[in-house]
């Protein structure tokens, strides 16, 4: 349905998209992943010309949309878009948001558009909010209405630009649920996202963007489990772990807790598992290592999640000559750790001591 050939886009002279080639077929659900600044959103926004490309070709159903004579508005009517910041029309109710396009662009009567709006709102579970204004809705509800608004135009493809990035972790699921349902119903979707679970479970193909192009693409199993290229591999690997450098007692532990929670959600860990990891980190760092070392020695912390075995590893490393840290630390804490976790061990590599907790 969409063919992208050698797409180029510069910002301030620097190339963000450097010759992107890709194909999107009908019914496909494509997740676009990559580090920040890799050009994922730019790529998406070029497709419906919210950004003007600097080179290349984009063919939508055979038509070159970059042609001077192309009817951009007609093309946009067929490409729905869902934004990270929702962008619902503030002065209109949910139903009216859904009615605006069909009435003014598709020539539907207000009655028709209203019926359709209600049924779409029903589909996303928000029919009772038909007369509510966006300011009265939560983030998740707003995004669901936004999706319904895109659907109201009966598009051929829907572009999602980081649809859940601005949402509280608790509201991410309700939006992803709608998206999964759409995917199952056969809607063609392009989703720029950081939600790896969605990318793995719901997409038919994954584009990993790097170096200003689609660095590697393939089915989710390939990208996530056996990536073929170097950078894909390191990206995917990084996804599965979280790091922190703890320099001293003034370290932001609350921030670390939050980071762990986020990581856990993304990996699909249960709340219990997340709490366990946070506990492990707290006991290990605060009650065992720091008191034992007594000085301000930097501690490197990393938490790894192994999908296949559902195992989490917490590894703390520091440069020290001490060997018996575990014994020197708070005995009570050590008991807790040993009781809750699979294994607690320490080993040395040269000057660095490692302590590992496996769950």
């Amino acid at each position, binding site marked *: 349905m969409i063919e992208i050939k050698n797409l180029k886009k510069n910002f301030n002279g620097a190339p963000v998209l450097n010759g992107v080639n890709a194909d999107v077929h009908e019914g496909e659900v494509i997740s676009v992943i990559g580090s920040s600044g890799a050009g994922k959103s730019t790529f998406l926004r070029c497709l*419906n010309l*919210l950004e003007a490309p600097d080179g290349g070709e984009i063919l939508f159903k055979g038509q070159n949309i970059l042609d001077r004579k192309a009817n951009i*508005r*007609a*093309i*946009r*009517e067929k*490409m*729905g*878009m869902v*934004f990270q*910041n*929702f*962008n*619902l*029309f*503030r*002065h209109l*109710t949910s*139903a*009216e948001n859904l*009615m*605006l*396009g069909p009435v*003014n*662009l598709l020539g539907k009567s*207000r*009655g028709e558009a*209203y019926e359709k709006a209600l049924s779409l709102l029903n589909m996303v579970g928000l029919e009772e909010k*038909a*007369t*509510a*204004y966006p*300011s*009265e809705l939560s983030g998740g509800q707003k995004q669901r209405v936004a999706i319904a*608004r895109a659907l109201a*135009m009966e598009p051929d493809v829907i572009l999602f630009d980081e649809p859940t990035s601005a949402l509280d972790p608790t509201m991410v699921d309700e939006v992803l649920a709608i998206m999964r349902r759409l995917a199952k119903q056969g809607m063609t979707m392009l989703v720029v996202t950081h939600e790896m679970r969605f990318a793995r479970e719901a997409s038919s193909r994954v584009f990993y963007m790097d170096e200003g192009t689609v660095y590697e693409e393939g089915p989710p199993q390939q990208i996530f489990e056996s990536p073929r290229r170097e950078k894909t591999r390191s990206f995917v690997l990084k996804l599965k772990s979280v790091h922190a450098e703890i320099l001293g007692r003034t370290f932001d532990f609350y921030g670390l807790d939050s980071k762990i929670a986020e990581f856990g959600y993304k990996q699909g860990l249960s709340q219990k598992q997340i709490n366990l990891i946070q506990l492990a980190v707290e006991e290990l760092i605060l009650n065992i290592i720091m008191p034992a070392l007594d000085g301000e020695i930097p501690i490197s912390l990393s938490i790894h999640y192994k999908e296949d075995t559902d195992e989490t590893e917490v590894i703390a490393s520091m440069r020290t000559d001490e060997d018996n840290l575990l014994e020197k630390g708070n005995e009570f804490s050590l008991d807790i750790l040993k009781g809750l976790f699979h294994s607690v061990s320490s080993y040395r590599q040269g000057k660095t001591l490692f302590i590992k907790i496996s769950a």
Partner: protein
Amino acid sequence: MKKTKTIVILALFLALLPSVTARAGQVYFSAEDLEGKRVGVAKGYGADLTVTEMGIFRVSRYLYDVDLPVALKAGNIEAFATERSSAELMAAEIPGLVILPEPIGHEKYVAVSSKRNKALGEAVDAAIGEIIGSPAYAEMIERWLGGNAQSAVMPDIPAGRGERLVVGVSSDYMPFEYFGEGGERLGFDVELILRIGALLDREIVFFETAHSSLFPALDSGYADVCISVIDDKPVLREKYFVSRPYYDNVVMLVVQAERGKAIGFMDGIARSINNHLIVEKRFMYIIEGLCNTLIITGAAAFCGTLLGALLCAAIRGKRRFLRGAALLYVRILQGTPIIVLLLFTTYVMFAGSGLDTVLTGTVAFSLYFSVKVSEVFRAGLDAIENGQIEAARALGLSGLQTYRLVLIPQAAIMTLPLYSADLVEMLKLTSVVGYVGIMDLTYSLEIIRSRTYEAVFPLALETLLYIFLTSSVTRIFRVVSARIDPAQKMQKERRIII
């Protein structure tokens, strides 16, 4: 509640104060006594020149003659100077004034016309000569300047039937030119003008304006000749054609005598209401003034809004030329005081066109308001985040549709309070149009004030009327705001319009 009570008591006390303070006797008896003291004059009239040339006083210039006795009573000046008939009228109306016996100067009144039309000037001059030589002249003096002006009636003078002769007057000066009970023109100068019209067989048309605007009116062709207690000064002849003097007047000094009997507060109010509103149906002036104020404000609001919307579009648009022109226009207007703008439209822009000054005033305020409106619209539109535009475009809406369906509704809801505030401010600003002789609410009360010589009542009335107008406007906008901002309605009341 307690606070209100305190304020009311304080106000009553202050109001009654003049009637209970010690009486002072007359202090000044001659011009020499007033050396170095503050003497008030009405700006631009003959007394001004006299007093200035004498050089021994500290001169305070007031815009209106009627402010002089008020200032004297308030203690802002020790004396004021004015021509004799005015002094006599004031002394008769206001208790506690004494006219010093020695005149301090002379005023000679002349008719002034443009040098462009020498023939007219000469004809008027000849007519004046004829009138002075006729028995009618003595009658005129007796009628208007004999101290009986209150009961004077304009005699029947056959109207000329020839070409129009537009005569500029400033009818706020009894007994020379003023309005009577039924709105008819009365006064010495007025009778003179009518007689000139009869002699020259020309139809007299009066052009009413403020005294300081008489010469600009002559310059721009709004008036052919001005006869309105214009004192003969040498400098006049350089610019205009000046007739022979038609009346010799003297300038007198007026000081305070013993304070007159004080009037009780409540009696005072009753008397004030009578004087200001009922006598001579003066409230009709106020009604006319009110209408003009509303007309100018309303029309200027309408035109200004349209113009402002265009300006806003030009400034936000892509064409650099339009944007530059619009910004220049805004810059110029923002730097121009409203009075200057008013004078500009009246005497430059529409000079000689004969257009009603209410219209030229409306134009001035439309220009002024357009700038405010454009600023308000721009602020409203700029405040809408880009995402709204992106969502609209992504749906497939055109630029125009985006404006109509998404941007303007949101901007309107947001900026209605600002717009309302600017409108109210403009309504208050229209109070300066009296400066170019438009009779609005303020000017109408000034005219009444010139007859009653009071300050507190008319000004308090004026203030109350303006407060009434402005709060009505504000309330209307609040209702409108509640209706167009549907988010303010409760959820269960909402309906989607099919």
